């Protein structure tokens, strides 16, 4: 088992640092186990499990840095890896944007780890798949699904005394159910830290209902519609927008946050005043690593050790913060806020059903698919609805509709906000169902 405790990890890191001769040395140690089971056509197609434990050493001379990695842990191998990183560093060109390593940091207490998830075994995965396959087989529906679980840790240490450790678990489950005639398709997605909160049968039943309800879809004219976007539908658009809040790009004039004539739109009201988006690594529903920056997500790997704090990105429609590389933050004299591992969009108390009930005419969207940027300046994206699209009239779902292609920007979408429901966990984030007016559907698709 490759989950080292903080003490075990630190012992290895300290040993590696003891061999170092460079100006600065950083050690990153991460490992874990990931397992999966995949099924399609009502039958399991593949399943597997893999373990890994890997150590990376980054050595720096002046502004030249080199990295070497290894997955053997005897003293000779560790020392050899340090020497190799140092040799690579000496040969590397200078990076004028190199920033000296961070010293000791204070981190929030977060707990993105669950023992229940760590205990997952092949029997659990087979049972989870069976619970999803069995009801579909019985109703003559066709299931295709995928479950992946990860239990891992990530530790950092450097010659300036920084020590960071995180362990985390995650389970991601998706299920697509199709009718035997291929005319109906439904989908559900779940992600949890603690696998005891996952019920593959419950998720599959929703996908089954949507598959059955989406048969005999009618074609509506493309155009601007009021839509209710389930969190699975809005998550990618919102994530793409959050991924575009880099301060340097905004300063350089190539971002939706760049201002005409120079400067950024920080402090401007860009969205409806009910839009508030923040991140909080301690949130019990979506706990994340307390350190990050430069990537790594929930496992905090590959990071420079910057602390993840609670931070508000958009407050009542106003852009409050952007994230920065340490180099650019120093150049601009602003805090080096790292990009968040996950985000929370504040919502209301209404359920999805409440949102439907309050809708005179509109379209319920289960999911958006193949989303690609069309214009980075306006964050215009295109993509399609998929796996359950329904027409709503007078507060009720009336009939299934054929899928649409959309061309829409999350910035415009969050200005056309009508109502928000209670946020739910999706892709590691908390996102409410959103009711949006004038959402642009530009053409019809025959895809089911």
């Amino acid at each position, binding site marked *: 088992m490759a989950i080292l405790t903080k003490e075990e990890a630190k012992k290895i890191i300290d040993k590696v640092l003891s061999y170092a001769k460079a100006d600065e040395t950083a050690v990153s140690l991460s490992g874990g186990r990931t397992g999966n089971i995949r099924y399609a056509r009502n039958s399991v197609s593949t399943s597997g499990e893999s373990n890994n434990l890997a150590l990376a050493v980054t050595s720096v001379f002046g502004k030249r840095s080199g990295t070497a990695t290894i997955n053997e842990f005897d003293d000779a191998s560790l020392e050899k890896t340090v020497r190799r990183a140092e040799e690579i560093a000496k040969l590397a060109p200078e*990076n004028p944007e190199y920033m000296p390593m961070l010293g000791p940091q204070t981190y929030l207490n977060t707990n993105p780890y669950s023992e229940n998830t760590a205990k997952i075994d092949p029997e659990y995965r087979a049972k989870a798949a069976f619970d999803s396959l069995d009801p579909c087989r019985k109703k003559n529906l*066709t299931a295709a699904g995928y479950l992946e679980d990860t239990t891992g840790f990530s530790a950092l240490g450097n010659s300036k005394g920084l020590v960071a450790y995180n362990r985390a678990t995650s389970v991601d489950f998706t299920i697509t159910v199709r009718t035997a005639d291929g005319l109906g398709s439904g989908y559900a997605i779940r992600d949890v830290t603690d696998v005891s909160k996952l019920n593959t049968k419950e998720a599959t039943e929703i996908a089954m209902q949507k598959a059955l309800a989406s048969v005999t879809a009618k074609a509506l004219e493309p155009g601007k519609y009021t839509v209710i976007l389930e969190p699975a539908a809005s998550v990618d658009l919102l994530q793409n927008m959050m991924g575009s809040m880099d301060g340097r790009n905004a300063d350089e004039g190539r971002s939706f946050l760049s*201002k005409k004539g120079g400067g950024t739109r920080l402090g401007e009201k860009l969205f409806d005043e009910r839009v508030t988006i923040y991140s909080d690594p301690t949130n019990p529903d979506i706990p994340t690593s307390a350190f990050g920056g430069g990537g790594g997500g929930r496992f905090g790997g590959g990071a420079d050790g910057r602390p993840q704090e609670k931070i508000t990105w958009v407050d009542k429609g106003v852009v409050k913060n952007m994230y920065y590389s340490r180099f650019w933050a120093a150049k601009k004299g602003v805090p080096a806020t790292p990009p968040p591992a996950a985000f929370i969009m504040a919502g209301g108390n209404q359920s999805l059903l409440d949102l439907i009930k309050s809708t005179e005419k509109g379209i319920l969207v289960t999911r958006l698919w193949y989303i690609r940027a069309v214009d980075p300046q306006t964050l215009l994206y295109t993509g399609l609805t998929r796996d359950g699209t329904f027409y709503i009239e007078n507060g009720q779902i009336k009939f299934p509709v054929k899928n649409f292609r959309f061309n829409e920007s999350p910035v415009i979408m969050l200005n056309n906000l009508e109502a928000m429901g209670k946020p739910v966990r999706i892709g590691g984030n908390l996102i409410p169902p959103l009711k949006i007016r004038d959402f642009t559907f530009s*053409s019809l698709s025959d895809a*089911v």
Partner: protein
Amino acid sequence: MGLSAAGILLPTIPGLGRSVDPGVLLEAGMDVAVKKRLADAALNAAKAKGATYTDVRIGRYLNQFVVTREDKVQNIANTESYGVGVRVIANGCWGFAALVDAKNEADVARAAEEAVAIAKANSRLIKQPVQLAPQQGYGEVSWKAPIKQNAFEVPIKEKVDLLLGVNAAAMKNGANYVNSVLFMVNEQKYIATSDGTYADQDIHRIWPIFNVTCIDPKSGKFETRNALSAPSGMGYDYLQVNPADKVTGVTTRYNKGYDMLEDVTAAAQQAKQKLSAKSVEAGKYDLVLDPSHLWLTIHESVGHPLELDRVLGYEANFAGTSFATLDKWQSKNFQYGSKLVNFVADKQQVGSLGAVGYDDEGVKTKQWDLVRDGILVNYQAIRDQAAIIGEKASHGCCYADSWSTVQFQRMPNVSLSAGKTPLSVADMIKDVKKGIYIVGDGSFSIDQQRYNFQFGGQLFYEIKDGQIAGMLKDVAYQSNTQEFWNSCAAICDERDYRLGGSFFDGKGQPSQSSAVSHGSATTRFNGVNVINTARKI
């Protein structure tokens, strides 16, 4: 599912293996006699445990990236990944196990035994036993990509100088920002099968790319222009400038040799020009699509829907299924495109990304027709699928992106055959009354059954009464696959035939990446719906 949105920040791709000294990339891999010994150990161990079929892949995967922006080198990465993957059939079910750094017979035998154990455990969950198309053994064979210069032999300094020179040319010609990357790959793959094939292969790929940004401070608008290079199954020779490889016209495009410096100079000027270009008026246009653009439309609307695993539903939960269902193929009259349209699948095309001698289950590669005179005639199938479409043998398009991942059906090069009657691009344009000429690939999106798509591009030129009338911007076209290919009205002849492609075609869960090329000559489509993508925020 389709191409990952791999932007210019390529080197953050995980799972490439360990970081190594650049010198390691030049070290010879394991001797072929040692590979055979390891492979035999696995084949024997699997057979002893009851496997009815086994293949062993011993892979060493080398990558090098050089990443720059303006006058700075941002990253130089050299990676190596070595290991062994063993796949077996036992109790009629597939099983797979892989081992990193496996260098002795006991290790690989253990992996083989584990694969058999997994197959036996999973055999309880399958409905039907796996049926493999028969396959002869070829004995000990080898295949090498016909490269002229191994990119790893070129000193890093030369690569850095090239990219910094490219960046300087962009800045000198009006760019505000420029990123450039050289991405090089060498797959040293060995496959042994229980049918008696032992194939040793050496595959090379290279992809030089850049992205130029120009900003108009007054309006706050910015425009970009990406490289018109194609990722190639060549060595560093792809970067040797050869006038014969240049296609001149409204902008210079490239065939088997790429002039990066010349292209970036044009890119900076064109990105600036885009800032003041006319915003397109939405409506129906005849489109003239350059191969640097059309490859992506072929990839999404022809390559993917004809993958048999998608057609059968194996990708339903992720990439999706396909509109090109078996009944359409069985009817023998499904009009995929107009009579001019012929699509060929090809795993042998010289200089392409998909070219190998043998696929990842030991099948000798070949060419075959997918669409002939507009009619759907075939799919892409591997050994355990061939029987489903009545084929006696696999098409040889099985691939895994690493020794550690399970091989499955992947897209071969899928190309549109050049026109049979002589036709130049200039002559094609002369005939167009209201049209748009599109060069380079841009935004792309298609539904999960591959009906409805939308594509952008890099450069758009308005055609009025047979003449290029100036540059357009905010252009994207939308269509339906069958409608679009049936609107194909003319295809230039083979003098204009060029390849495009990507390193990053994604499919499967967990997702695997595969490199694939698509060839075509400039092609005309009549009456396609064009939208205007400009918005205000």
